[in-house]
């Protein structure tokens, strides 16, 4: 099953099961079915519960928040993650606050789905990974499934279980990807697959390891679309250099499931964090300081971050490739710590 199908199936099932689930967004009704087809078929199967909205990101974010505060479970699609800046006031001064600021009188089960990410030539305003801007906003969750997770199950958990406004970060490059399946030996490709859920029961972090029982040389933490590059880099390094990397892929970006990372970090003592967004003020910075505060004595080397350069993402294919993190950046970072 492909990433996009998993999300689409989950929405169909949820709308069938729970009539308070509503779907809103731009261009989401059939026959178009959404810019990336995540909402395909929903308006046909559930007329009246799928609302095609004007191009008014702030307005519809507030509107969906009001629905969530008054008995419904709205799922709002923002067509490109870049446009989340237009929703920012509604999230920061509104949705994120209503549960706690009002003295916990009710929940706000709002899910905002949006695709982030580049590598597709969409240029400076349609390629960014802006979720780290929201790491410092109390009162929300950020979820970002990779193709090593079950995106549909995560979406289900966000809609039904989380109770706080949730930014559900999808990834353009991942939509057509087949979801990874574990074989009979417990492997995905060359890696042993394991779920770590010390921090969160329903949404576990994935661990990929070449040797199941042996300690890894490096712990690599990555999420979202760029995990594909991280896995390629790790594979190349075991083949070419016999460097054993344990890849940790969280599905929850905020709150950071830090306990899921610590065991591996204590074993390897070397950490690389790979994100698609800019390094400055990013996810890696936050995770690195969390790790340092907790297990500094186990670290053999400083934690290293790989991320996008501090520039707008260029449109040209060659330029984009050199400004966004690539496989050789990740390999160099790993080798630099050994």
């Amino acid at each position, binding site marked *: 099953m492909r990433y996009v199908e998993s999300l689409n199936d989950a929405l169909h099932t949820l709308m069938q099961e729970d009539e308070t689930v509503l779907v809103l967004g731009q261009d989401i009704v059939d026959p178009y079915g959404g810019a990336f087809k995540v909402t395909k078929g929903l308006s046909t199967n559930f007329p009246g519960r799928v609302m095609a909205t004007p191009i008014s990101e702030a307005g519809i974010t*507030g509107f969906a928040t*009001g629905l969530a505060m008054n*008995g419904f479970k709205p799922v709002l699609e923002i067509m490109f993650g870049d446009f989340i800046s237009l929703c920012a006031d*509604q999230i920061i001064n*509104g949705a994120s606050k209503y549960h*706690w600021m*009002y003295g916990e*009188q009710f929940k706000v089960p709002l899910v905002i789905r949006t695709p982030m990410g580049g590598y597709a030539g969409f240029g400076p305003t349609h390629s960014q990974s802006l979720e780290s801007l929201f790491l410092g906003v109390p009162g929300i969750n950020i979820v970002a499934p990779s193709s090593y997770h079950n995106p549909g199950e995560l979406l289900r958990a966000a809609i039904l279980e989380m109770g706080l406004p949730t930014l559900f970060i999808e990834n353009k490059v991942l939509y057509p990807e087949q979801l990874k399946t574990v074989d009979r030996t417990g492997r995905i490709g060359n890696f042993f697959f394991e779920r770590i859920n010390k921090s969160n029961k329903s949404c576990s972090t994935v661990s990929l390891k070449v040797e199941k029982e042996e300690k890894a040389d490096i712990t690599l933490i990555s999420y979202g679309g760029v995990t594909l590059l991280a896995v390629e880099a790790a594979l190349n390094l075991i083949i070419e250099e016999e460097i054993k990397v344990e890849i940790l892929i969280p599905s929850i970006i905020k709150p950071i499931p830090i306990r899921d990372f610590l065991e591996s970090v204590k074993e390897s003592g070397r950490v690389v964090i790979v994100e698609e967004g800019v390094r400055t003020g990013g996810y890696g910075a936050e995770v690195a300081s969390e790790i340092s505060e907790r297990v500094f004595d186990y670290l053999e080397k400083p934690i290293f971050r790989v991320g996008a350069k501090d520039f707008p993402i260029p449109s040209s294919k060659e330029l984009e490739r050199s400004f966004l993190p690539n496989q050789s950046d990740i390999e160099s970072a790993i080798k630099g710590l050994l």
Partner: protein
Amino acid sequence: MLKESEIHNRSKLYRKILLIRKFEERLLELFKEGVLFGTTHTCIGQEASAVSVMEHLKDGDLVVSNHRCHGHYLARTNDSVGLLAEIMGKKEGPCQGRGGSQHLCKNGFYSNGVQGNIFPVAAGMAHAEKLKCTGNIVVVFIGDGTFGEGVLYETLNLVSLWNVPLLTIVENNRYAQSTSIKNNFAGSFSSRISGFNISFGEVESNDVEELSSRFFDIIESVRNGARPHVEVIHTYRLGPHSTTEYGRSLEEVEGWKKRDPLKMLEHRLMKNEVNEIRQLVKNELQNAEEKVKQF
């Protein structure tokens, strides 16, 4: 001759306006005494809109307000103890002291201090009532200053497009903090609203009885027609924006004092009635303050 029920209603309206007025005057005193922490925005002089609208709401209707929300809150909930507790940061306040003066929430009442931020939220709540077929409406209070915010226009488009039962009350007190409407508002309220094909009305009044009969009809039409409506009340804030006054002319403020909604109603009541209500409100607020100080 007025009917007995109308006389009764007049004293009820007076009690409500007086409660709001005295509550907020006391707040400003407490502020000066250094008892209050943070800031506060009073609606002194513009209480008539809050009181006249709430008269006609049903239990299930929702009310959404802004930074200047004490009058709306008191008119809707009558909860002077809760409001004072919340403003004084007590855990017994409806929001446990977390929200404070600008962020109140109780029994279907919500306010938020950022201009326009909660306007689309109010629209979503109203749409939810429509989907649930409750017949309830949402009333949202905004000010003239909110007309500078883009999300207002996004939301007006949504509520017209989707037939959302949202009643918007614009309290035009002619100042956005210290800036006169003359210096920040192009065009007119009516032309801005009519562009969205939303029914619109405006009135210059501080007369709570006049406004009350006006809102009886408006609220019924929003409820029965399941369509939005925007009503502008041109009024005036006699008190400061928050805790200090900025450069409005004394002449201007004095002129509006002649149209003080409290005084207008007072003249229509018997003296003994006025005195009786004053005593009631005084006792109520004293009790509230004593109670909150014990929290």
